[in-house]
């Protein structure tokens, strides 16, 4: 019914959208892998980052890609502070409590943004927002191509940080054996906070990549966060390559479902995959053993 070219384009589109999902999921899965918590505030934090990008563009005239540079450390600090001074102390290390605290945070953040910015939908416009890269007969969106490339690079960088730096080693040690890490003198709360900060820094990158083509309003985070949960579960909670592959996979599935079933019902595909994976193989398709 559709020409192969259209299907190919849809798949490529999905792949590129999936890259951004992967970036968002990367933060989520990293936090899960180390802290073993599900960060419900992830979507709200993404919204914060997107608003930051928008503000920098609207008030200071900064290019959204450029904003990523200062925003990454800012989000890192925000994440570090949240975990160190709010989530950690408030939840007393209990799983259920962390869920609730992050849920509470997301409600607060979302509605503070609503109070400040109203629920207006905001967009920004750059010269390249709707430029295309012509690949033979295929027209690929320029910002999405950038998004795909950056997502791959960021995953690589994160992997390097975890495997080649002392901090990374500490993080992995805490992820594996919290008590032991504590015994050899690793400051566990500090490592937790660093991990949370890194997760938030990923959101800064995602926000900068999204804004040239997307819009922001105080509730937009929830549209992404459920997809990100799906990606994380699919890729195996805590697995970085899993998040990348899961994100790309979900992107393609969503895009093709959207093409054939319509975008409304296409969404259901994601949730059904999510439920099925949770029920059948909660460790994820690409995940390590739990």
């Amino acid at each position, binding site marked *: 019914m559709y020409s192969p070219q*259209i299907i190919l384009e849809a798949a490529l*589109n999905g792949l590129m959208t999936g890259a951004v999902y992967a970036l968002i999921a990367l933060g989520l899965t990293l936090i899960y892998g180390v802290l073993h918590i599900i960060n419900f505030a992830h979507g709200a934090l993404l919204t914060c980052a997107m608003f930051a990008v928008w503000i920098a563009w609207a008030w200071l005239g900064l290019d959204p890609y450029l904003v990523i540079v200062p925003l990454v450390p800012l989000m890192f600090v925000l994440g570090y502070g949240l975990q160190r001074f709010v989530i950690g102390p408030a939840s007393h290390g209990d799983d259920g409590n962390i869920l609730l605290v992050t849920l509470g945070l997301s409600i607060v953040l979302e509605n503070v943004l609503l109070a400040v910015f109203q*629920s207006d*939908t905001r967009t920004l416009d750059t010269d390249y927002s*709707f*430029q295309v890269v012509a690949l033979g007969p295929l027209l690929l*969106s320029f910002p999405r191509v950038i998004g795909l490339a950056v997502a791959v690079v960021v995953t690589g960088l994160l992997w390097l940080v975890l495997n080649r730096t002392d901090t990374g080693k500490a993080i992995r040690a805490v992820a594996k054996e919290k008590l032991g890490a504590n015994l050899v003198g690793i400051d566990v709360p500090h490592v937790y906070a660093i991990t949370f900060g890194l997760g938030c820094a990923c959101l800064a990158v995602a926000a900068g990549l999204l804004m040239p083509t997307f819009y922001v309003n105080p509730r937009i985070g929830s*549209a992404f966060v459920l997809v990100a949960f799906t990606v994380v579960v699919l890729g195996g909670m805590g697995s970085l390559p899993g998040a990348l592959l899961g994100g790309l996979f979900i992107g393609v599935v969503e*895009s093709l479902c959207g093409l054939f079933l319509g975008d409304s019902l296409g969404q259901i595909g994601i949730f059904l995959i999510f439920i099925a994976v949770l029920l059948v193989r909660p460790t994820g398709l690409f995940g390590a053993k739990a």
Partner: protein
Amino acid sequence: MGRSVQDSAPFGISRRTVLKAGAAAATFATVPVAAPSILRAQTPAVKIGILQPVTGALAHDGDLGRLGAEMAINEINAAGGIKSLGGARIEMVFGDARSTPEAGTQEVERMQAEGVCAIVGGFASPICLAASQAAARYDLPYLVDVGVSDQIMARGLTNTFRFSPGFGKVTQVALDNLTRINELAGKPAKTVVLVHEDGLFGSGLAKLLQAELPKRGFEILETIAHPTPARDMSNVALRIRSLNPDLVIPSNYYGEFVLLARTMQQQRIKPKGVYAVLGGAASNGRFVKEFPQAAQNVIDCNHWHDPKNPKALALRKAVEGQGKSFAYNVPLNYSNLLLLADAIERAGSADRKTIIEALNASTFAGHIMPYGPTKFVNGQNEGATPINTQIQGEDIKVIFPESVAEAKVNFPAA
């Protein structure tokens, strides 16, 4: 149908009598519990409830609706208030419907307790449906400002009035006008793709269009639904590109329409026309200002003020002077307030029954919509009609029907 609350309410009578007495004495009604300490002015006042979603998903629209109502109230008060009530001032009792039906209902209850004599607003159909029903319990007149769902008027509630056109009427006119515009241009458009959001508004419209378009010689190649909010319009654009229709008819909200228009521009899809019906962005000044290229030549069939009415133009100027973008619900709320004030003036009382009677008898023509004199039949204003606008250059111009047009239609888009 059409059984009012009164007929079937066993305890209704005594309670309602009490309430009504309260309403008649609205001027100095002591408000029971929830009343904020509004100091009452020396001159008598008539309280009117303004219900708008100023928080939540519809906050932007609700804000504009409130603005329209406020401007009308200020104007009426400045001109001496309601003369038949000794120059009574109109006092606005504002309620935030928070973009949900039950919040709307709660606000109606509060307004009832504060002794309003009528309510105007609602904006979205679900809010209008729920709020007007809540008001019906008290025989409280409810003027729907925008809600287009035909369900709203089909319930036979005697308290509910709609000054603006409903779904059926809008689609009818949209199709008639489209057929005419196409004929005048030499019938360049034959094939159509419908793109709609999957909520109450988009789905309902798509259903009507699917039934009606083929009768008028258009072939529907495909109907594409998408959720709100939508993350991505690439798929929709791809499908449109592969179908290559003459005409794209979108019905969705602001964010999604902008995304669609920009993605189509990106994918170099140039149909002969984009003809929105009750388009979310196509009649919105902001869209034109922010994305002039993507917006060019988009036609909309929507609520719009009479462009030849000097009062309407002054209103638009005043709104834009406040740095806000002008949209159709400003003049709609403005007109509704004038209409209501006229009814209260003629009723000579703040009694609900009398106001409802006065509304039913209304022939009000002092509003700024292209509707002519008002005439309510079962609560629906018969003269209400949408008109066609097109984004040309940096402005939204009325292009059809010819009687009110400011500019010539640019179709097929050059």
